[in-house]
């Protein structure tokens, strides 16, 4: 029967559609045994780099480029402690690092490494006034620049903001990407789950030491359980014959399952001082022997937010620009999720070129 004949017989068309769908599904299922090849081919990090500094578990990566350098101020990516940082350089066509390298910046990225039980007593002070300070001073020495530009993502953004408040002379420009600053909101699920009424951070850390990677992974999965456990696998099954989709799916899943444990004392401080007591916005956050005052931030700041972010809702980031003393402040929002801010095609098309432009004007 031809198409024209089908159009006049809806019930025949419906049956044909069912048969076609079943045969397509069975054809796609034959690809299932070969999925492991995609998982094996996943590369962690797309852009060429070299390790230029190491301290304990920390490695500082310098991204190599043939492009002529257009800016003398080095750019330092500061990622969170809960995941591996290669999300910022996941695939060549959607790499935040690559955008800045191609724009002529001297780009560096901190890989915090994987803490062991021996690191359970590291505090935020150890990371901010220890490791991060050493890295920044090393970059200043290596490049001859008085100050560096910092781009912090998620928890790395919070840490970058704290570092800039404590060492304002060392940071020339500060870019925050979905960074939690105001933890008093109850928009996000994590804010609710970590409430002092329901979560005893002291007992947790005293019993377990480091916060296990599996705990964090489960928590992130449970933010959107239906999407993560049902919709996403169904989406994969329906597009098994799309090689590019399958490769990107496995690349993303590799990163999503690549959580690292968080040192116990860092976890304790982050939950108690930030999530539960919200001390950062009150300018009462203790870091070592110092108290963080966001008013000490006077450098240009750019606050990037994702409007569909479930992990760090916009409400947690929006108030940052009002809390600093910078005269040059800007906020940009893009319609994306927390991870989409880094790997989404819309972000790479619309947001990151603007960010590169913003930074170039101030470097």
């Amino acid at each position, binding site marked *: 029967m031809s198409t024209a004949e089908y159009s006049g017989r809806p019930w025949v068309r419906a049956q044909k559609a069912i048969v076609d769908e079943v045969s397509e599904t069975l054809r796609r299922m034959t690809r299932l045994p070969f999925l492991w090849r995609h998982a094996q081919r996943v590369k962690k990090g797309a852009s060429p780099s070299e390790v230029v500094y190491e301290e304990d578990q920390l490695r500082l990566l310098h991204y190599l480029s043939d492009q002529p350098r257009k800016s003398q101020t080095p750019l330092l990516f500061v990622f969170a402690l809960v995941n591996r940082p290669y999300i910022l350089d996941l695939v060549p066509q959607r790499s935040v690092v690559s955008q800045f390298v191609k724009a002529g910046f001297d780009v560096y990225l901190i890989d915090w490494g994987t803490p062991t039980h021996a690191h359970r007593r590291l505090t935020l002070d150890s990371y901010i006034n220890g490791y991060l300070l050493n890295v920044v001073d090393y970059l200043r020495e290596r490049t001859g620049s008085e100050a560096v530009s910092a781009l912090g993502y998620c928890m790395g953004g919070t840490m970058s903001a704290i570092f800039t408040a404590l060492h304002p002379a060392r940071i020339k420009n500060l870019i925050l990407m979905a960074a939690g600053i105001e933890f008093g909101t109850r928009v996000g699920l994590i804010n609710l789950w970590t409430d002092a*009424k329901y979560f005893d951070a002291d007992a*947790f850390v005293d019993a377990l030491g480091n916060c296990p990677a599996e705990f964090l992974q489960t928590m992130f999965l449970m933010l959107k359980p239906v999407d993560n456990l049902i919709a996403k696998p169904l989406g994969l099954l329906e597009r098994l014959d799309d090689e590019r989709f399958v490769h990107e799916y496995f690349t993303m899943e590799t990163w999503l399952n690549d959580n690292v444990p968080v040192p116990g004392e860092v976890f304790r401080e982050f939950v108690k001082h930030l999530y539960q007591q919200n001390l950062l916005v009150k300018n009462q956050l203790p870091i070592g022997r110092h108290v963080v005052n966001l008013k000490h931030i006077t450098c240009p700041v750019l606050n990037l937010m994702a409007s569909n972010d479930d992990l760090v809702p916009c409400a947690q980031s929006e108030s940052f620009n009002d809390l600093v003393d910078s005269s040059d402040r800007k906020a940009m929002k893009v319609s994306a999720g927390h991870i989409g801010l880094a790997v989404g095609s819309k972000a790479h098309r619309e947001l990151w070129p603007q960010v590169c432009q913003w930074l170039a004007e101030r470097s």
Partner: protein
Amino acid sequence: MSSDQGDGSFGGDAFTRMWSQFAAKMMELGLSFAPQATPPEAAREVRSSLLRAWADYCDQFMRSEEFLNMLKQSLAGAIQARQQLNNFLGEMQHNFQGTSRQDADELMASLQRVERRLLDETQRIAARLDELSARLAKVERLSGRPDDLAPRPAPAERIAERPKESRQAKRPSQRSHRKTRNRNRP
């Protein structure tokens, strides 16, 4: 759908609401159903609606008092079990004259306290030396003698003077030195 966060109850009412909302969405879907749509397309629409309703319900449930209390209890149980395991293993290791994890933790804590005291002392000494050097330089300038012991230049000048050396990346087998940087310096 209103949030159940405040009223503390998330029982049968929520289930009823969830399924009635789902039924309403199905009716809406039925009204907008295009006759030319095939059964697989219709099935996908139904599945999408079901998953959306389910996701909304899960989000609301995870904000409810019931879930939060359940979370608290399960975490408390898990922490208690882990603590008992830690205590048991520690006691067993002590009975065999071994070293337990708690012993190693205490040793690390002691080392960190010593490190902190040393760094604080180093910082105090460095500040005192800078002060003395500045006073000595002032005295020598006033007396007309060469300024040999001028205070160390500021970091910006130091960077300009020192040749640029790229730090060699260490092989993984080599332990990196923890730099004796004053972590408490503002």
